[in-house]
Each structure stands twice: as structure tokens, then as C-alpha cells.
């Protein structure tokens, strides 16, 4: 079945029987294609981790159906466990007295690699993840970044068909996080058919790694699409900031606004734009139906005696999308998810 989704969820609900009960997931529908990098983006308490735990067979859904690689998460757990792996941010797994190399080898045994294959695979992954210098260092002496690289290498030991990364860069510094994201992309590029489900609340991470993103809040998927599609949801038009050396003559801004494909043209400063142009410049904010209308705007400006000195496209961030959808920012959460 070549078209079978790598991850499939229909009406997945999970209620924790606490007092009062907490609905961590509320009827989630999801299809992730084989080879796709998919992101679950949302604040703490959104239900991202709960969904990953269900898909990795650690939790049962209260209702609904979920499948990984075509296998049911309730009844075919053994088969799922043979083709997946999981890495969580801030993970402290393993045993501190082992060296990094020994720790990876130990986990390779849990995936059934032979003694020799295990060591070979471990050495490959150590080299790939840049841990060669630390390979004989005890795990308890590793830095947070090195530790997370180790966890990432552990997640690749069985060359999983579906890899789950749960907040993988949590607590890492900028360089270590970037390093880990690059490894994730390299892993994808190395072979087709590898599927990734990433949970994060870092916009950049979701945007950099994921083909598609679902914005999740309070157990529900609020929006789903490519990063570009999501941005389009809150801003259908293309907005450009155009800086000129002087105000256009012959009708000025009004003439620009009347061009075909131009929805509006205003002085950027009048629109409350934070970035005002310099004293000897004029900044316009031009909204276009699509990017192709930009050529006629630039031509019209030049025809009216102004020179273009700056041009920038203004795009909404994924956080803007989230705020638009939820009515609050990532930092304004008030729901709490029991799992972390």
C-alpha cells in the first residue's frame, strides 16, 4: 500500500482522569504522508506531547483511531515499535557511568542489532553527530548539547521509518539547536521515505524543518498547511515596504494605488509602521493582490521621478498566525497539559 499515510489519526481524543478531568486531545484528525516532515506547533499544554505518546504506543487514546505506518496504536504495538523511534528534549535517559559509545551500543541491543553491527552503527552515528571527541567520555560528564546529540543518535540507531522528536531543542543554546536541526535535515536528505513528526513551540524550528505544520491549542488542531499556506490565512495579500529618495510626482501615492493589481498604497509612517524612513527618504506600504504586480509598481515609481532605495516584503510570522487563530500569544497560555 504505497499511499498509506505514515501517520493517520481520526477523532483521537485523550482525557486524563484527574480531578477535574483534563481533555488533552479533543478529536484530532491528521494525515502525514511517508517522507513528510510534519510539525505540531503550539504552546505548553496544547496536547502535542500527548499525541506523540499515543502515536509511540505509550498511551491509549480515550477514543478515536490512530495508526503509524499502517499499524493500529492500540492493537499492533509490537509492529509499530519495530519501525519508530523517539527523542525528547531534555532527555536524561541511559546510565551516567557508561561512556557515550557504550550507552549507544546498549540501546542498539534493544533494537536487536548484532554485537558487531551495533558497534559499527554506533561509530557511524557518533561520527555523523560530531561526537567523536566525546565518545569515551562518561555520559554524566556531557554538556546539555552533547547529551541531546547523543539522544538524537540514539533515535537513529534502528534507522526508523517514523521518527518522533518531542521538543528536541528544548534548553539548548542557539548553536547546539541549529546543529541538531541540520542533522535532522541531513537525515531526511540521506534517504527518501523517512517521516518526521516534530513537536515544538519554536516558530523558526517548525518553519525550517517542516513541510507542513499543524497549529495546536487545547487539544485541537486549529490550522494545518505549509508555512506559506498558514501565513496566507492571516494575510492574503502581499505587502511590500518601498523606500524612495523622494515622493513620486504626477499623482503621487494615489496614482500608485490605482495601478492594476495594487490593493492599496499608503505612506508607511502614516500607517503606524515602526520603521520610519530617514529624513531624506519616503517609505510606502503597498499591498498587492500578488507578487507579479510589483513590476508595474516599480516602473510607475521610476516614471514619476523617484528612485528606489529600499524594498522589503512584509510577511506575517507563524506567531501572527497563532495569535490570529487563538486570540492570544504563545506566552499567554492558561491551559496546562499534564504531560511534558
Amino acid at each position: 500500500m504505497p499511499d498509506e499515510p505514515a501517520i493517520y489519526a481520526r477523532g483521537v481524543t485523550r482525557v486524563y482522569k484527574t480531578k477535574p478531568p483534563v481533555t488533552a486531545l479533543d478529536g484530532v484528525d491528521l494525515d502525514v504522508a511517508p517522507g513528510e516532515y510534519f510539525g505540531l506547533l503550539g504552546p505548553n499544554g496544547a496536547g502535542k506531547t500527548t499525541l506523540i505518546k499515543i502515536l509511540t504506543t505509550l498511551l491509549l487514546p480515550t477514543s478515536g483511531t490512530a495508526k503509524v505506518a499502517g499499524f493500529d496504536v492500540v492493537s499492533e504495538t509490537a509492529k509499530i515499535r519495530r519501525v519508530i523511534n523517539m527523542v525528547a528534549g531534555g532527555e536524561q535517559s541511559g546510565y551516567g557511568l557508561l561512556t557515550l559509545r557504550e550507552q549507544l551500543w546498549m540501546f542498539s541491543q534493544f533494537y536487536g542489532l548484532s554485537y558487531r553491527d551495533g558497534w559499527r552503527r554506533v561509530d557511524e552515528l557518533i561520527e555523523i553527530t560530531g561526537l567523536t571527541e566525546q565518545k569515551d567520555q562518561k555520559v554524566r560528564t556531557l554538556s546539555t548539547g552533547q547529551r541531546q546529540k547523543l539522544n538524537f543518535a540514539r533515535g537513529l540507531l534502528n534507522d526508523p521509518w517514523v521518527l518522533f522528536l518531542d521538543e528536541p531543542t528544548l534548553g539548548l543554546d542557539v548553536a547546539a539547536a541549529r546543529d541538531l536541526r541540520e542533522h535532522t535535515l541531513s537525515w531526511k536528505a540521506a534517504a527518501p521515505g523517512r517521516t518526521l513528526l516534530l513537536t515544538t513551540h519554536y516558530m523558526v524550528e517548525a518553519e525550517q524543518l517542516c513541510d507542513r505544520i499543524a497549529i495546536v491549542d487545547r487539544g485541537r488542531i486549529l490550522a494545518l498547511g505549509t508555512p506559506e499556506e498558514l501565513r496566507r490565512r492571516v494575510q492574503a495579500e502581499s505587502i511590500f515596504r518601498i523606500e524612495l529618495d523622494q515622493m513620486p510626482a504626477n499623482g503621487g501615492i494615489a496614482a500608485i494605488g490605482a495601478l492594476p493589481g495594487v490593493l492599496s498604497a499608503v505612506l508607511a509612517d502614516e500607517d503606524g509602521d515602526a520603521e520610519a524612513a530617514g529624513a531624506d527618504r519616503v517609505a510606502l506600504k503597498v499591498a498587492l493582490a500578488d507578487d507579479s504586480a510589483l513590476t508595474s509598481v516599480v516602473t510607475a515609481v521610476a516614471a514619476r521621478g523617484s528612485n528606489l532605495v529600499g524594498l522589503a516584503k512584509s510577511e506575517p510570522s507563524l506567531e501572527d498566525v497563532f495569535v490570529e487563530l487563538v486570540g492570544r500569544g504563545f506566552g499567554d497560555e492558561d491551559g496546562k497539559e499534564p504531560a511534558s
Partner: protein
Amino acid sequence: MTTYGARRATNPRDAAEWSRGRVLRTNLRSVFGRAYPRIIGLTREPSWVFFEIFLPFLAVSAFVFVYRALDAPEEYIGFVVVGGAMTAFWLNVVWMMAAQFFWEKDQGNLELYFTAPMHLMSILAGMAVGGLVMTSSRAVAVIAIGSILYGVSYDIQQPWLLVAVFILTMIPLYGLGMLFASLFLMWGREANHLAELLQEPIYFLGGVNFPLRAIGPIAGLMMATLPLAVGLDAMRQLVFAGSEVSGVLPVGTEMAILAVMGVAFLAGARIALRHLEHLARREGRLTLRWQ
């Protein structure tokens, strides 16, 4: 040339189809993998020599001096030394088997064990094998030092039977640890309290420092439930064959009891583990550190 992996299967459906042989090999490798940190730990943390040989030996010594002051039969000294050695196994079962799952959960290892394609019994078996190897070296050290220091003389007439009794004792002992591992996780937030609860009473009820027969009819009851008590009694009979201090039951009977216990505890561990996994997945007990 390094790679991120070389697959043999062309799709995940094929990759998930494992032969019985592969399942068995994976579980055996998992046993070895989990035993590894315990075995290697012997060379990594030499402080165990002080904490697990010297300190327990002080307790053994105290009983030796009491028995000598009371003019107890010389075999009693040997009983205490052997009991001291076997104590190491009980401590290992309580602290590094029964309480281990709880700590593995806290550390985040349990989640990874659950999502890996082996049976959790293999992890428990790995802990047991590793613990057995680790503790055997400590037990041998206690016996060697005790024997030399206090001049214990042994009368072993059936060495192979002694080995068989030792193995038969270890199976239910570690089986009990495997059973407790699931029960501790299901019942307790504070594994160390439960472990402490099991420690001292068993020293008494197991007859670690005295011949079990000395506590009269209660001894029979203890024999029915505690592999340590049965095993110790049988081993003492075999190690001090010519002793005037007799055992509670004949060695053959005690071996039969140990065999039944071994099967019962291992089966119990498997059932408890299955129940634990079901509970964990249904209620999130394994995955939620606050539960």
C-alpha cells in the same frame, strides 16, 4: 563513509515483519544490553568495595562476636558468614530490581524501553543477570574474607548439589525482584520506602544471621514464602554437612519448594508486567512523572 542507516526492507510494512528467530535474538540481546551497565559498573565505581563489602562485613562480625561470647557451636560462625554473603543478593533484589523500574521511570528510561521492540521481561532479566554477576563477586568477597578472618571450615560433600541449590535460589529470588519491580511502580510514589520496608524484616524472617530452625514453627511459614529463607537453609545444610545444627526441611524438599517458587514468581512477574503496561497506557502512569 558514514551513513544515516542502510535499510534492508523497502517499506515499513516489510520492516515490521519479524521472524520468531529475530524476535528471540532481539530479546536475548536486550538481556545482555541491560546487564552490561551493571557488569561494567564493577570496574567503574570501586567505592562499592567499601560500601558493599566492608560495611556489611561489620554486621557479620558483630554476630560472630556475639556467638563466640555465647559459646555457640562453631558452625554458627559459618552460618553468619554465608548469611552475610546471601544478604548481598537480597539487597540487590530489593534496591536494584524491585525499586529499579521506579527510578528508570524518573530518569525517562522506561519510556524508551516501552517504545523499543523488545519485551520488558528482557529488561528485567538483564537487570537480574547483571545484578547476579555484580553481586556474586561481592558475595564471594564476603565469604573469602569471613572465612579467612574467622577461620570458618566448610564440609561440602555434594558440591554440584550446592551449585544447583544456589541457582535454584537465585531464580525465585530474582523472580521476586522482577515481580516487585512492577508492583512498586504500580503502587508507590516512594520506592525507597517500600524497599526499606522489605529490608530489615527479611533479615529476620530469612534467617540471615541465625539458623532458621531456631525460631520454631514460624520457620515453616517463612519457608513457604521466602526464597532467601529456603535457599539459605538448604545451602547451610550442604555447606556444613557434618553439622549438628539441622535444617528445617530436607534439602530435596527445599529444592522442590524453590523450583515451584521460581515458576510462580516468574509467571507472576510476567502477569504483573502485562497489567502494568496496560495500566500505564490506559492511565498514563508510566509517561506522567507526576503520577
